[in-house]
């Protein structure tokens, strides 16, 4: 691997990191797990002048679940940590469903959820999960901290809203109010492949009524698609086959895929429809059985 020439710093404190980024004036980049940035540097698609390695910063590897069900994912929490976090899965099953489908075991031991959000790959999986859960990113810069809802955080393909001297320190998934259900399905050609199409579904149920729903899609647009219409089709209703069909229709409608070597646009929309139907049908049968 022969990237362009770059400088490398491994600061010990967050302030130091922010200072380095500030001085880098837009030519510096944060290095987290390196699973997206390093391949791009190898191909010289990314040519930062300075890498600010945040792996030594204390506290960023914290994965916390609060009493109200809020989940805080520090910037150095790896995919693998999330794959193994049973307590997190119990609160938000969609996280447990998505984690093992990200990349392969090797990549999962290094890559981070926050890095994945920052990277804003339209085929990334975590952004769909965090969107379905209405999560937000906490960023810190010279001027202090701010919270950025995920919908505002990603601004386009491989683009986020962070200033050049801000570090995303954690992602937060708000705690649920009712019974949580959901799932994550992804069509991949091989383990370690990005999604041809993927769907994250997170719902909350009060009895058999849906009180909150989030449905987000990956691989089917120039950024993660928040299928709000699909979610609205569910809220306030029971998970009847009509409601499920309406949500699946709306999700497929919201998808804006392009044809490529993974399949036609129509096929990808069809897969989204199938996945939304499958996840919701499974939820409705399990809750029926439970009842």
């Amino acid at each position, binding site marked *: 691997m022969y990237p362009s020439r770059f400088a490398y710093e491994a600061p010990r404190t967050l302030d130091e990191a922010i200072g380095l980024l500030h001085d880098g004036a837009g030519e510096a980049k944060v290095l987290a797990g390196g699973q997206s940035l390093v391949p791009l540097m190898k*191909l010289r698609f990314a040519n930062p002048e300075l890498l600010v390695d945040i792996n030594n910063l204390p506290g960023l590897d914290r994965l916390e679940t609060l009493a109200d069900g809020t989940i805080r994912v520090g910037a150095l929490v790896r995919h693998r940590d999330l794959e193994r976090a049973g307590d997190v899965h119990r609160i938000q099953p969609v996280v447990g469903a998505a984690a093992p489908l990200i990349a392969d075991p090797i990549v999962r031991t290094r890559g981070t959820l926050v890095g994945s959000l920052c990277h804003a790959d339209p085929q990334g999986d975590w952004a769909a999960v965090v969107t379905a859960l209405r999560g937000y990113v906490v960023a810190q810069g010279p001027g202090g901290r701010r919270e950025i809802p995920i919908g505002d955080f990603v601004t386009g393909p491989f683009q986020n809203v962070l200033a050049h001297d801000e570090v995303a320190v954690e992602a937060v998934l708000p705690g649920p109010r009712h019974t949580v259900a959901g799932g994550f399905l992804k*069509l991949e050609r*091989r*383990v370690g492949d990005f999604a041809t199409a993927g769907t994250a579904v997170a719902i909350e149920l009060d009895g058999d009524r849906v009180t909150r729903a989030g449905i987000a899609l990956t691989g089917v647009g120039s950024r993660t698609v928040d299928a709000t219409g699909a979610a609205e089709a569910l809220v306030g209703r029971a998970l009847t086959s009509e409601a499920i069909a309406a949500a699946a229709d709306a999700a497929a409608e919201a998808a804006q895929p392009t*044809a490529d070597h993974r399949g*036609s646009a129509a096929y990808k929309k*069809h897969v989204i429809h*199938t996945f939304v139907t499958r996840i919701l049908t499974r939820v409705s049968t399990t809750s029926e059985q439970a009842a």
Partner: protein
Amino acid sequence: MTVTEPTSRALDEIKIGGMGASRRRVEDNRFIRGKGHYVDDVVLPGMLHMEILRSPVAHARIVSIDASAAWEIPGVRLVLTGEMMATRNLAWMPTLSYDTQAVLATDKVRFQGQEVAAVIADDPYIAKDACEAIVVEYEQLPVIVNPTQSLAPDAPLIRDDKVGQVDNVCFTWQVGDQDATDRAFAEADVVSRIEMHYPRSHPSPLETCGSVADFDRATGKLTVYMTTQAPHIVRAAVALIAELPEHLIRIVSPDLGGGFGNKVPVYPGYVISILASILTERPVKWIEDRTGNLISTGFGRDVYLTGEMALRKDGRILGVRMHTDSDHGAFFGDAQPSKFKIGLLHSAFACYDIPTAHLTARGVYTNKAPGGVAYRCSFRVTEAMFFQERMVQAAADDLGMDQAEFRRLNFVRDDDFPHRTPFGFLTDSGQYAKCLQVGLDAIDYEGFLREKAEAAKNGRLLGIGISCMTEPLGAGNSREYDILGIKMFDSAELRVHMTGKAILRTGAKTQGQGHETTWAQIVAHELGIPAEDILVEEGDTDTAPFGMGTYASRSTPVAGAAIAMAARKVKAKARQLAAHLLEVSEEDVEWELGRFYVRSAPDRGVSIQECAMAAYSNMPDGLEPGLEANAYYDPPNLTWPFGCYIATVEIDPATGVWDVLRFVAVDDCGVRINPMIVEGQIMGGLTEAYAMASMQFITFDADGNCIGSNFMDYLLPTAWETPGWELHEVVTPCPHHPIGAKGVGECATVGGPAAFVNAVMDALKGHGVRNVDMPLLPDRVHEALQTRGDVSGAPPIRTDR
């Protein structure tokens, strides 16, 4: 030396690591410790580094190349362009198929990734920076990515460099009996037809190509460490192309990280690094990156196959017609025996008793990378057997016959050897029906058919696919097989030291096949020297005897035979020494494994080690000292292993995703030298077959951009999705091979793909689908189900811009 009283009788062959022993691979000792020695591990004093600038576009005239900024960068020692290569007559070089190929482009670029310039610098980073500083102005030309475009009347001429070339056809060829085949079709009750594209794939060895060229001006000697499966062919090519004296050229092929046919051709990078070393008088290292390997080096397949089969109502095959349009890219760089234009495609249908067949072939140029190599197959045999087994399946379906029964009915019978195939090959042995039966029993064929029918009632799609084939492995004989006029034989040289240890060298070149392990086992079998006492060495042309290298599963059939013959020569001499030691005449000496003894007094004997010591310390008068021999082996025929592969699958109708339920492989490769290594080869081959069937292709968009230029787009299966393989064996020894072995390294790659595809097609039967081109990606399978029709995978791929 005194004659000792015998203490042992014949050795236990398995214990000494002889034939049939599943001996652990000795090479793995260094590989698993990270102590292998690959080309990139070669570091020489004063070594420079080379990087190649490749064309970003598929077809364009080069207006200008401005390298001045590259020369300015500190640490840059040399910048080479086509113009400069031309002053040495090296801008173009011959290919292995009697065509020419640009080393560095002079006039036009003809595919994306073509070599345009090279920078030689103090380190690879500088070389890469300098490549980016070279400014090339291109004038874009229309791009051709498939034969239909290539053959269109108004198609732009790709090879305008060739005198007399008026269109994009690079050859036409035919074989077989056209008249007899026409008559067979006239008599047919039923004619079955099929049409398909076998997509372009890439062997993608994990180690990419590379070289370290070291020209020593003082001695005039050129040493090149390089990734080659055939070092002696390269030495000959360098002598001829670069006009250097052959005795001063040393090609060393160290440990290879896989080859699969990719490392047979001579690539521009090698040639440029050699010239660069001559010009700079410094060693020059070139290590290709992954993208360079995938977009510019020898691909596999990329053929369009159409065919028809003449059938009698009772299920007998009367004749076959085949036509192929093959896409060779910008230069006809196939690695194949020179007599055949489309490899051994006409080895198709060798296991069936078919009276007549006729094949027409046409090769075309396109704006794609050159070099149709035998990707883990014996020269286009993968395409041949894929076509054969897809055709057979279609014919069985058209006749409404059971696919297993149809095959059994048409197989060459066990007592019908030697058998002349419809295209004229001579096969010599096999038990085809038995292999098929072993496979059917293993998969519980009847049981699965019942399960499938039951599942269909619930809308589930199950399918079973069979693929049977006998494959022509082990080119030559020299009468029919040569590469650029060099006959295809092979060699071995065995030297037994005085303590009974030995060194064996061959002209083959292992690249994962385990020669260091199995070759010693052949010697152990012949001489009774424990395998662990034999060092196997290959790949250095200064020490190894001349050989044609390792590809096309030819090493055991040819070099393996040469080893047995060399060992037999050693044994003949050892017998003379034994007679001397035992003080009897040679006729009175008998052999059992590891030991000569006196026929009338079996207790009196000498070990092979004692004979070895005598060769250096106590030889009879008049006998030449030493104990060594070499042998050049020109095989009387190819070897014809047989494979029967059976897959069962289930398709998810909603997504088109299919899963392999079970996979049974029955291989008959004759006598197995090391059963464990054979099984490893079969598992690896099946994994590649699964890759081709399910996920793998190098395709192109309409602008000639290669889709598949890295491992995120060109998919290699991992252990996660690769199915489990259930292996079985049948043994029919090869009648003409000294140890009864047949080739096996490629059988599973060759025969495997059709088993998967036939299984998926079987599941789709009744849905109006006759063919879906590989790879059977879920979207294609789904489209076939939706449209109730065939799905073609020919490039350009459909994209939204």
